C-alpha cells in the first residue's frame, strides 16, 4: 500500500468533494440536511426508529427498534444507551438487549416501568412506532464466555433483571412466536454451543414479587419444558422472599456452576458475599445507576482546573469558583445570557431563582454531561463540572 496518496487518488477526490459540499452548506454540515431525509443512513450519528411496542406484563413492554446502518451488533447480555425525548427533554438510559442477532437486523429491549420513572413509563406506556431515538453502540461485560463446551451455569434473575439473561438464552435456544426451537445445530443462531452435540447445563433461578409481573416467565417455562434449562421460579407472594442461603438447597450442584446474576443491588451484594465466602465465580449486572439525591450545598469540583470548593447552598457556583481563582466564562451573571453555561458530569444543582433541581447521573446524560448556568446555580450535593 502506498504511504502517500497520489494526487487524484479516489481518497483525495472524495475529500475534495466533501469539502465542496461543506462549502455549500456552511455554517451547517451536509449531515444536517441529510438527517432530514435519512436519519438512519450510514455515516449519521447512531439513531434508531421504533418499529413496534409489545406489552409483556401490565407494566413492562418490549420495544423493537430498527437501528441505523452503522449499528455494529452486540453480544447477548450487553446493553445499549438510548436517548429519547420525554416531555421534550432528551433523556439517556441503559437497557439490556433481550435477544441475539436477529435476521431482520432489528434490536429489542424490554422495559419495566418503575414508579415515578420518567423514561421507563414513557417507553412502556407512551412510546409509539415511528419515533426516532438516539443510540450508542452496545456495551457491557455481562456476556457468556466464548467457549461454552461442557460448562455449567447458574443464572439468577430478579424482576426485570431477567432481560440480559433472556437475551443470552434466546440466542442459545432461538425462540419463535410458536415456541422454543431447541437448536438442532443447523441454524446460524447458536454459538459454539449446540445443545444436541454439546449439552449446556443451565439452571435459572428467577425471583419476582408475583408471577403475573414476571417478564418472560412463559418463555422461561417453555425453555424448561423443552429441556433447554432447569427453571426454579420463586415468588415473594407464594414462597416468601428468597434468601441467598437457600440457593444451595435449590441448586444442589451450585459449586460446579458459574453464576450470572442480575437484579436489585441488595440481592447482588448478598450474592457477592455468599459466592466469595465459597470461592465461587460470579458475574453481575447492576441496573440501578448511582442515585443522585438533592440536598443543601455541597462540594463543587472543577475537574480540568483541579479545584474543589465547598459551598453552603446560597452562593452561586460562578462566584465561588471565581473566588477560588478559577477563570470562569460568564456574562450577565443573572441567568439570562447563557454565557456561563458549563457541562455538569455528575451531581445536582439548585436554580437559585426558583429552587428547581437539575441532576446529572453518570450514564444518563448526553456525552459530556448536562449543561448548567453557573451564575444562578448552587450545589445541591457534590457536583463535578467539566471545566
Amino acid at each position, binding site marked *: 500500500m502506498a504511504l502517500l496518496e497520489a494526487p487524484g487518488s479516489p481518497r483525495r477526490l472524495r475529500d475534495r468533494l466533501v469539502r465542496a459540499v461543506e*462549502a455549500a452548506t456552511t*455554517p451547517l454540515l451536509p449531515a444536517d440536511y441529510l438527517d432530514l431525509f435519512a436519519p438512519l443512513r450510514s455515516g449519521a450519528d447512531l439513531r434508531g426508529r421504533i418499529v413496534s411496542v409489545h406489552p409483556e406484563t401490565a407494566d413492562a413492554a418490549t420495544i423493537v427498534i430498527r437501528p441505523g446502518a452503522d449499528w455494529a451488533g452486540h453480544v447477548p447480555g450487553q446493553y445499549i444507551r438510548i436517548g429519547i425525548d420525554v416531555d421534550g*427533554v*432528551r433523556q439517556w438510559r441503559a437497557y439490556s438487549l433481550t435477544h441475539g442477532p436477529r435476521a431482520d437486523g432489528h434490536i429489542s429491549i424490554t422495559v419495566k416501568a418503575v414508579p415515578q420513572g420518567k423514561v421507563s413509563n414513557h417507553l412502556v406506556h407512551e412510546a409509539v412506532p415511528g419515533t426516532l431515538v438516539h443510540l450508542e453502540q452496545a456495551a457491557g461485560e455481562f456476556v457468556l464466555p466464548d467457549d461454552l463446551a461442557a460448562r455449567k451455569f447458574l443464572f439468577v434473575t430478579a424482576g426485570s433483571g431477567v432481560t440480559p439473561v433472556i437475551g443470552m438464552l434466546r440466542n442459545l435456544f432461538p425462540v419463535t412466536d410458536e415456541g422454543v426451537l431447541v437448536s438442532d445445530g443447523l441454524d446460524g443462531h447458536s454459538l459454539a454451543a449446540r445443545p444436541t452435540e454439546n449439552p449446556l447445563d443451565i439452571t435459572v433461578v428467577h425471583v419476582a414479587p408475583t408471577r403475573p409481573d414476571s417478564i418472560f416467565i412463559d418463555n422461561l417455562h417453555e425453555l424448561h419444558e423443552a429441556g433447554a434449562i432447569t427453571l426454579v421460579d420463586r415468588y415473594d407472594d407464594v414462597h416468601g422472599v428468597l434468601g441467598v442461603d437457600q440457593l444451595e438447597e435449590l441448586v444442589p450442584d451450585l459449586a460446579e456452576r458459574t453464576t450470572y446474576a442480575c437484579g436489585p443491588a441488595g440481592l447482588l451484594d448478598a450474592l457477592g458475599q455468599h459466592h466469595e465466602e465459597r470461592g465461587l465465580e460470579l458475574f453481575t449486572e447492576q441496573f440501578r445507576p448511582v442515585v443522585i439525591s438533592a440536598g443543601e450545598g455541597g462540594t463543587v469540583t472543577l475537574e480540568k482546573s483541579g479545584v474543589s470548593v465547598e459551598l453552603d447552598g446560597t452562593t452561586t457556583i460562578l462566584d465561588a469558583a471565581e473566588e477560588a481563582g478559577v477563570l470562569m466564562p460568564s*456574562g450577565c451573571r*443573572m441567568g439570562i445570557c*447563557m*454565557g456561563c453555561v458549563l457541562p455538569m458530569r455528575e451531581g445536582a444543582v439548585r436554580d437559585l431563582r426558583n429552587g428547581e433541581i437539575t441532576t446529572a447521573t453518570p450514564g444518563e446524560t448526553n456525552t459530556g454531561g448536562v*449543561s448548567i448556568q453557573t451564575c444562578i446555580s448552587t450545589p445541591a450535593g457534590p457536583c463535578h463540572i467539566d471545566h
Partner: protein
Amino acid sequence: MTTITRKDVNPTAHLTPEDIEQIGVELDAIRQDVIDSRGASDAAYIRKVVDVQRKLELGSRAVLLASIFPPAWIVGTVGLSVAKILENMEIGHNVMHGQWDWMRDPKIHSTTWEWDNASTAEGWKHSHNQVHHTYTNIVGKDNDLGYGIMRVDEDQRWSPFLLGQPLWNFVNACFFEYGIAAYDLELGKNLRIPREKRSEAFRRSAKNTLRKIRKQATKDYVVHPALSIPTGSFLPTLAANFTANLARNLWTHSVIMCGHFPEGVETFEKKSIPANETRGEWYVRQMLGSANISGSKAMHLMTGQLSFQIEHHLFPDLPSNRYAEVAPKVQALFEKYDLNYHSASLPRQVGSAWHKIVRLSLPNGWLAETNVKNAPKQVALLYKLSTGGPKVRRAYDAMQRRAENQKRETVAA
C-alpha cells in the same frame, strides 16, 4: 427621547420600591408558569420550524439552479429570502439565547449553534445576549443604542458627522449582517487602538469573523452560482443570493429598529442605575425600554417573535413560541401599574424609528423648531453648528436646555 431621569415626568415616578419588587414577583410567576408547562409540543414546534426552514432553503436553492428562467429566479429568491429570515430570526437568534437549551438536544443548543450570518455565534452571544440584554437602553453602556455610529437619544452628543446618519442607517440596513459583525467586534473602538496594542481576544475574534465571512461569501457568491453553471445560471443565482441576503438584512434591520428605537421608548442614564439593581428594577427597565409590533401570526414568525420585544426582553430565555400567550398577562401588568405598553403596527414603528433617526441626525430641537418661514434662518444655524466646533455646539445645547426649563416653569405656573 431623553433618559427617564431627565424627563419632565419620569414615567416610573409613581412606583414605590415595593411596587417595583412586586412587579418582579409577578413577572417571575408568569415566567415560572411557562417553565412548568413547557414540554413536548414546544420541542415539536422548534423542530418543525428547523425542518421547514431547511427544506425551504434546499428547495429554493434547487430551483435557483435554473434561475436563468425568470419564474425560477423569482420563486427561488423569495424562498431563499424567507428561509434566511427564518434562520436568523426564529431559529438562530432564539436558539443562541438558550431558549431551547432545556431540551438537552446538542443540535439545538446555545453552546453549539452557528448561524447563517457574517457575525460569529460567539461574538453575537457576547454583544447581544450579555451586553445588550443586561444593560438594555442604558446610554453609554448598551451599544445597541445606535450601534456606536448613530445618535438615537437626545442625551447622546450631536456632531456634524451625524447629519449623514439617515444615510448611514440605510447603508447599515442593506449590509446589516456585516454591520453586526463589525459591531460585535467593537471594530470602531479597536481600530483606533494601534495595531500592536490590540488585545489578543480582539485579534482572535477578528480572525474568526473574517474566516466566517469568507465561508459565507464563498457559499452564496461562488459555490451555489457555480453549481448553476450547467444551466447557464451563474449570474442569476449570484444575483438571487445577493438579493436574498439584502432582503434578509433589510427585514432584520427594520424589525430590530422597532424593538428599541421608536419614539416613546425609554432610555436610562448610566448613573441612575444602582450598582446592585434588583431583579424588579431590571424588569421595569426592560418593560419601558422595548416596543412591540402588532400583527398576524405570520408576522410574529417572520420577526422571530421579536414583535413581542417587551416579552422577549423580560424573558429572553423562554421559548419564543410562548411569547404570544404571555403577552396579555404582561400587558395586564403594565395596566395595573399604569405603565405604557408600547405596541404598534410594523409601518408605524418603522416610521417612528426612522423619524427619530432623522430628527436626531440634527441638533436637539432643530427639527421641531423648523418651519417653512424660518427655514433659511434654521439652515444658517445648522451651518454654524456644523462648522463652529464643540464650543458653539455646547452653547447651543445650553440654550436649548434653558428654553426647556423655562417652558417647564411656565407650565408649572
